[in-house]
């Protein structure tokens, strides 16, 4: 998952838009807005050029095995990279329904949920008219293992799920990916991912009840071996969707044009309207907002990737004439602060930290209510099936202001119950790891001030942003800043990943906590549960355990706001990706 500029990186998700919304004081208020006319297909015509304006210098990547940004997963998936399964292309909760895409159905699992088979549809074609084969999918999946190229950038589910022995390569697997594998090593992969005509079978080392969701990720997309240019594949990926990459130049533009060899009969998910999509990179954010507000010329056919500048939010949401062009909603992301349970093993201290923290000041520092709402769960509100506001620590102020009295009471309790941790917190101080960014230089001052009120000392440990996750992977502080969104519409990509044993982003050392054994056994139960309702119930209970044990302090369920040109239609928030269904957008007028 990546964050670039104003774009909150959302790794795919999710469910029904939910939750009440906080006001922003005078004038415009933050609240759910779905885009009005621009989200409908009223008056849409075939053809035209859609523009995407962004201040980013380029896409994070166009390489399917490397992309891990929610909006881009949706954008590339809806235009030039098809996968075995996908999401229903509609607004609202229905948009999180999984549907077959290149596969004929949602796959067949063995009884133990460790073998999954998908059958490819007829008529699947690449942009040169050649057939998309099972071997292309297997080859695409194998690229994730080639970390010397794909560089751990995309989701690593292929590595963690596929039944390939552990080994000494950087991924921890005995298979090094297609570029370096010997014949013997390649055989290991071919055992795990095999083809039989139109059928592709995945053998997994663990039971996975929602593997049909896993293969909707672009890291499971096909890549024709003959077209693979390794590190440079992302500059010109080969298309099997309705659009293809005509040109891509970082710092300038990405031009997608219609793929004449896309077979519409083989695709029930995509209904392209425009002829061309042009991403214009590197635009000044102020200029983007002014252009969108002016809504003239080609900008009537434009959308923005990156949201609205905070200083313009009042203008946009205070002007009723913009109602049909604006959106405001959750983007599926939840921020939080991890606690190292090995070093902060005292529950009362952890509760005191949460109670004393001035969450409102933190939110104000990052832009106020438009940036999001105080999170009451580690599962984002958009993941409706698995989301339920948890019961938070007693005494926590709903308005985000600190409750110093309650926090101090917890510290007093801690002094008696766990004097060592109390002494560490008040004398030695707690090390707070965070990326060395402008935002966090501001935030850490708020942490230091508000926790200082109950005698807790914070030792600031800024880490160079590009090394942040790798650093805390090897050496955890006492507190660590993080953010997360589900990889698909199931909290199986949240709770186990962040708090479970072997979770890819579990830096809590929470296996030291007495409550962990029960927690983990319930996680295993939930992962193997095939009844979706029963599974949801378990995720909600597990989220409550995390909240009760304060393994992490939830921050915000973040939101994003957007404004589109007046000719734009079909620009609805596609919930699994927290952005528009790019390939479905059309133009009126």
């Amino acid at each position, binding site marked *: 998952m990546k964050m670039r500029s104003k774009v909150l990186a959302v790794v795919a998700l999710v469910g029904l838009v939910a939750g009440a919304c906080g006001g922003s004081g005078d004038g415009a208020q933050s609240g759910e807005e779905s885009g009005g006319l621009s989200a409908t297909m009223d008056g849409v015509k075939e053809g035209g050029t859609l523009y995407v304006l962004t201040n980013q210098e380029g896409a994070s990547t166009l390489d399917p095995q490397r992309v891990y940004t929610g909006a881009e997963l949706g954008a590339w998936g809806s235009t030039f990279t098809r996968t075995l399964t996908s999401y229903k292309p509609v607004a609202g909760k229905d948009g999180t329904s999984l549907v077959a895409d290149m596969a004929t159905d949602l796959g067949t699992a063995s009884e133990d949920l460790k073998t999954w088979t998908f059958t490819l549809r007829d008529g699947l074609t690449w942009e040169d008219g050649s057939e998309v084969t099972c071997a292309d999918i297997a080859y695409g999946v194998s690229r994730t293992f080639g970390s010397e190229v794909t560089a751990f950038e995309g989701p690593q589910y292929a590595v963690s799920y596929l039944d390939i022995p552990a080994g000494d390569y950087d991924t921890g697997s005995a298979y090094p990916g297609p570029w370096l594998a010997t014949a013997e090593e390649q055989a290991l992969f071919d055992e795990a991912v095999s083809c039989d005509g139109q059928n592709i079978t995945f053998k997994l080392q663990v039971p996975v009840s929602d593997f049909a969701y896993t293969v909707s990720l672009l890291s499971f997309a096909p890549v024709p071996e003959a077209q693979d240019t390794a*590190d440079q594949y992302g500059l010109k990926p080969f298309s099997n969707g309705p659009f293809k990459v005509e040109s891509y130049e970082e710092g300038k533009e990405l031009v997608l044009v219609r793929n004449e060899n896309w077979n519409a009969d083989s695709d029930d998910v995509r209904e392209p309207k425009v002829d061309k999509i042009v991403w214009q990179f590197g635009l000044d954010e102020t200029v983007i907002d002014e252009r969108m507000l002016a809504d003239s010329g080609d900008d009537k056919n434009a959308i923005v990737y990156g949201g609205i500048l905070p200083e313009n939010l009042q203008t946009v949401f205070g002007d009723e004439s913009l109602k049909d062009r604006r959106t405001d909603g959750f983007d599926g992301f939840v921020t939080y602060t991890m606690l190292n349970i090995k070093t902060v093993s005292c529950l009362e201290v952890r509760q005191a930290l949460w109670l004393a923290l001035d969450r409102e000041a933190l939110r104000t520092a990052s832009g106020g209510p438009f940036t999001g709402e105080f999170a009451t769960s580690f599962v984002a509100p958009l993941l409706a099936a698995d989301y339920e506001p948890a019961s938070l620590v007693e005494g926590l102020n709903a308005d985000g202001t600190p409750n110093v009295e309650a926090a101090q009471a917890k510290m007093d309790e801690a002094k008696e119950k766990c004097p060592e941790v109390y002494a560490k917190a008040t004398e030695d101080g707690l090390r707070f790891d965070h990326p060395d960014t402008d935002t966090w230089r501001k935030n850490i001052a708020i942490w230091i001030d508000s926790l200082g009120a109950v005698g807790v000392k914070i030792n600031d440990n800024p880490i160079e942003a590009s090394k942040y996750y*790798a650093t805390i992977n090897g050496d955890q502080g006492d507190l660590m800043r993080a953010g997360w969104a589900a990889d698909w519409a199931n909290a199986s990509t949240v709770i186990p990943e962040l708090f479970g044993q072997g979770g890819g982003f579990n830096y809590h050392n929470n296996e030291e906590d007495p409550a962990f054994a029960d927690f983990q056994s319930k996680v295993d139960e939930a992962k193997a549960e095939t009844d979706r309702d029963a599974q949801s119930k378990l995720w909600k209970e597990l989220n409550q355990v995390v909240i009760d044990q304060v393994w992490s302090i939830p921050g915000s369920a973040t939101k994003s706001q957007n404004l589109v040109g007046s000719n734009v239609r079909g620009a609805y928030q596609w919930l699994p990706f927290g952005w528009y269904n790019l390939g479905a957008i059309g133009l009126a007028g």
Partner: protein
Amino acid sequence: MVFFVLRRSFFAIVLLLIVSAFTFVIFSALPADPAALTCGKNCRPEVIESNRERLGYDRPLVEQYGAYMKGIFAGRTYGEEGSSIHCSAPSLGYSYDRHECVTTLIASTLPVTASIALGAFVLWMAIGVGLGTLAALKRGRWQDRVATAFSVIGVSLPTFFLGLIFIMVFVIWTGILPFPRYTGLTENPVDWFMSLLLPWFVLAIISAATYVRMTRNGILEVMNEEFVRLGIAKGLPRRRLIVTYVLRAALVPIVTIAGLDFAFLLGGALVTESIFNLPGLGKLTLAAVINSDLPILVATTMVSAVFIVVANTVVDILYGFLDPRVRVK
């Protein structure tokens, strides 16, 4: 004269070698870790170390510099067999952030910057010298005051501010011009011209302001020279006197500075390119700074240094032609 040119060229090459070594060392000492930048969020410390070894960042700086310089003359292969990328000579490195050979990136951005620099240069020289001459000839009159005011305003205006004002007025509010979107000169000369019009004027106004002052002062100074008074006394026509004698003498130092300014601009008009979204060398450098993309930073710094050193050498050589005393020194 030939010996003079050879000597200057030799020193230019030595200077470039020193600049390249210095640049390489400076950027290698930055806190940004190039090995960490080749690894995504799922990365582990040991993988970063493994990447460091694989990409050669663990080797002594001298060895890294040697490999870099060798790549300039012989090309270089990056990555491992099976997934390697070859960058042909002159290879200035490989950007793992942009997945391109740095030379390719510079080759694609340089024409943009050159287009901006060339047009802006012509405009600012025309405006600066023209207004400066007018101000000098109409000293103390309203033309002089207008030119001086232009000069003061131009010098005071930040590029980004003037750029934004131009965009607001000419693109967004009045719609007279489309938003600049760079098109290559050979692709469509009209679109090329239109995409560069606003950036040219912004740079020209800001740079010309200095040249107005320099030209005005230069001309006024030359006008007091004895040879000018002699010309007037001998009844030389005013136009001929100004154009043939006064301007020629006054412009020598201006041309020298203009040459260096032009070379500096070729290194990238960072702010102008960013405001007008022109994918030139300056914008490439800015993005490299934001992403800590060291191979690009080293290369763009060196390319800029080459422009400056070459321009300096050309100016030195020209001076040698114009003034024999320089050659003797």
